[in-house]
């Protein structure tokens, strides 16, 4: 088990490995692009094609003001859902259910946005709170089941994703559907003007600010408060936490509940800042992406934020890459999978680059004492 507070050497290492993982994944992606490109036409080797592909990816993500705005907008929900997964990880829990929590969060936020008639100053907070609450319930159910019955949260959150999808399908075709005769889509009506996030800059809603604030608050809670201390204690050694007087049942439920809250907030911010409504099928793919983001970010807040930017940039730039090269945008998923693979199995990266392993604190097994503490799901480097 790696120490929580790494020394300076390890900290450098914690940055180096993800960076090398990303570089390696991009290199491998380049090989795939090269293979898919027009490499055998005349003397053309196709290297230029790969370069063009990546340049267009970069340009698509950061090449213009609009591109930067788009990348930023995409970063926002990733930050929330990535933090959601990270927070659960810190509590030793694996939240695969960000997608379902995000879905119900969006539903609740949209409902609060179109059905309530409130003054603007409280309507927006109510909308966001509704999303948080719904997400918290969806995550909290898994937490409660884990804490009370031992039902593994990985399984229950997967199942809750599907149940959330069906719930959305039911609500968006039934009670919450936009009944205007012109609407033919399974979606809610648009939310009230007062319930929308204001724009900071043209096209860039205030959710960006919120994401920054929430990231800082999350950092503060996890690392500076007693609650966060309990969370990390439960994550590192639930038995010791119970012994130290932590109510483990409550803390686990809390962890998945707050994790769900953050994911629900992601959904609510998309509703209040981007779509202004909840539409069936708009929340696909966040679940697995957020796991990748949390892992790539080493379960640290700053890591999550940076990884979110990376994933958002990949997704944003994909359009231009596809447009320029007419290569399937699935290449982005391949690159993401490679990044995740190399971050998760960092031995590969270390082996590739001959990095010295972080000084693992090894110790002799003590007679009579079984150090049979199962590893926490995520490598818990600070």
């Amino acid at each position, binding site marked *: 088990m790696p120490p929580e507070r790494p020394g300076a050497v390890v900290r450098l290492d914690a940055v180096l490995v993800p960076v090398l993982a990303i570089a390696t994944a991009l290199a491998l992606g380049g090989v795939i692009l090269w293979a898919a490109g027009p490499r055998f036409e005349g003397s053309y080797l196709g290297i230029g094609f790969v370069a063009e592909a990546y340049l267009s990816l970069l340009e698509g993500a950061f090449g213009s003001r609009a591109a930067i705005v788009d990348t930023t907008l995409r970063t926002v929900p990733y930050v929330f859902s990535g933090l959601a997964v990270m927070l659960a990880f810190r509590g030793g829990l694996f939240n695969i259910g960000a997608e379902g929590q995000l879905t119900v969060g969006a539903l609740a936020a949209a409902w609060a946005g179109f059905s309530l008639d409130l003054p603007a100053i409280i309507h927006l907070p109510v909308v966001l709170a509704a999303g948080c609450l719904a997400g918290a319930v969806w995550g909290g159910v898994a937490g409660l089941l884990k804490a009370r019955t031992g039902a593994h949260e990985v399984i229950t959150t997967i199942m809750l994703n599907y149940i959330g999808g069906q719930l959305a399908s039911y609500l968006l075709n039934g009670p919450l559907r936009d009944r205007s005769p012109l609407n033919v889509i399974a979606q809610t009506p648009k939310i009230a003007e007062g319930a929308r996030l204001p724009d900071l800059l043209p096209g860039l809603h205030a959710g960006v600010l919120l994401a920054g604030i929430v990231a800082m608050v999350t950092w503060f809670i996890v690392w500076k408060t007693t609650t966060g201390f309990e969370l990390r204690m439960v994550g590192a050694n639930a038995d010791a936490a119970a012994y130290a*007087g932590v109510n483990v049942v409550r803390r686990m439920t809390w962890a998945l509940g707050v994790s769900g809250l953050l994911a629900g907030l992601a959904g609510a911010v998309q509703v209040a800042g981007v779509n202004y409504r909840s539409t069936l099928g708009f929340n696909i793919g966040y679940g697995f992406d957020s796991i990748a983001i949390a892992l790539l970010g080493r379960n640290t807040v700053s890591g999550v934020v940076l990884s979110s930017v990376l994933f958002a940039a990949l997704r944003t730039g994909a359009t231009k890459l596809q447009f320029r090269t007419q290569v399937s945008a699935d290449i982005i998923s391949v690159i993401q999978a490679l990044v995740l693979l190399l971050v998760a199995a960092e031995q590969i990266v270390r082996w590739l680059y001959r990095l010295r392993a972080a000084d693992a604190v090894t110790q002799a097994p003590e007679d009579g004492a079984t150090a049979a503490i199962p590893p926490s799901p995520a490598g818990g480097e600070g």
Partner: protein
Amino acid sequence: MSPIESHERTTTPNDLRQSARSAPIPSGTRGTGDPTFLLEARHLTKRYGPVIANRDVSFAVRPGEIVALLGENGAGKSTLMNVLYGMTVPDAGELAIDGKVVRLRSPRDALARGIGMVHQHFMLVPPFTVAENVALGNEPSRRGAIDIATVEARVASLASRFGIDVDPRAIVRDLSVGQQQRVEIVKALDRGARVLILDEPTAVLTPQEAEGLFRVLRGLAADGTAIVFISHKLGEVLSLAHRIVVMRRGAVVGEVLPEDATAESLAAMMVGREVMLRVDKSPSTPTEDRIVVRDLRVAGDHGGVAVDGVSFAVRAGEIVGIAGVQGNGQTELVEAISGLRPTAGGTLSLVGVEAHGLDVRARSMAGLAHVPEDRQRHGLVLPFSVADNLVLNRYHLPPLAQRGVRQARAIVAVARDLVARFDIRTPSPEVPVQALSGGNKQKVIIARELSHGLRALVAAQPTRGVDVGSIEFIHRSLVDARDAGAAVLVVSAELDELLSIADRILVMYRGRIVGEVPGSEATREGIGLFMAGGGGATQGSPPAGFAREDDVHYVN
């Protein structure tokens, strides 16, 4: 012993037993190359990071010989044994079987060469039957399917031959600890073990069960099996072994024949100096009741009653020890008192307050401290810093936290103070506690628990796996806590520990208190009788029907 013979013996182990040897056991030697050695370790060294677990260890055993490997917890016995069994590959040195150097890369290699092992933590798959467990790794099959009937027959035959009572079709999960140990022995014999290594086999047994085990082992030895018996209990080593090898701090420090040794001389070899048997302390002056248990009942992990109507009181200013073989309900009792485990009946009051409904935190706030039995699992959060571990029970209180926000400066200040007061050897309070040695880890716990508003203390196995220096320090701390007016309840499997520090000793057997002895009058023998469920001459009477129950399980 020629290689061919050795091969044959490996495949048909019973040959050897049938030609049971009765030759006198040759006297011990640490020299190498003796052709009569069945298994020999030469100059083994094994390191774990900076820790040297085995340093140039040489060790050997002959057929039909019972060799005891004696040493304290942490002396390197388990590492040596793991090397002998192929579970650990040594950094240096070699193993020889029948005089030939072998490399054991896995237990499979060891088993193939006739080395069997009974682990302290049983290697039995709970949902499997006895026969399936015995078969595992050496399964006979017929037309693709396991021929379990053959294994059942083999188990039955081995069992009857060595007087071991096991039902081959029983599910292991349902067996008692003693029975499971027998399954382990049968398993090893079934694999054709010529060398049987037993790791602390009596730790989980009553003295009577242990005596039964010894009979089995003597029978096996008479039959030609070489037995390596790992223990830190002097008495059983003296009574059982033909030869005693003593280890200390990873190295072999001596080798003696039992007839040349006394308990005192062995102890001196083990610890490197005379053991201070009694902690220097004044007579206790108990005052009011702090921990009062009345007719307490607690459920065990797998249903069943672990604590079955226990009543006692611990007063301020005294140390009460609870003796007993592990697994007689002590763990559950301690967990019930500390609030980790719900009670199933009876009452419990702490510091004058009815504890029912109070959670761990509330009890802790009321002044109850708890040194847990398993410090790795319960006592410490290994990846956290020493400082965080030193405040694990008070992190939420001012000045360590203000309105839910932790105060780093205050935490470090407290930590520095405790590190100094309790002589915790750590480079800084910021390093992860997992970097510390076992004794220093335990000191972290002791420091944390004894350093604040202490009114009652429950300490379970407070010195397990701790070096001698730390043991003295810990014992001193417990007595000091008593003298400062705390009620101290010490649960220990080490009788000597209780004899040296407790003012009163209660003995637990099968979930009940079966005897109480004042510390000053206690003897090993008297308490040992209680521990075995036998009536005591001093006081108290055995629970009704204990004798009958006792003999239901094992027929030796």
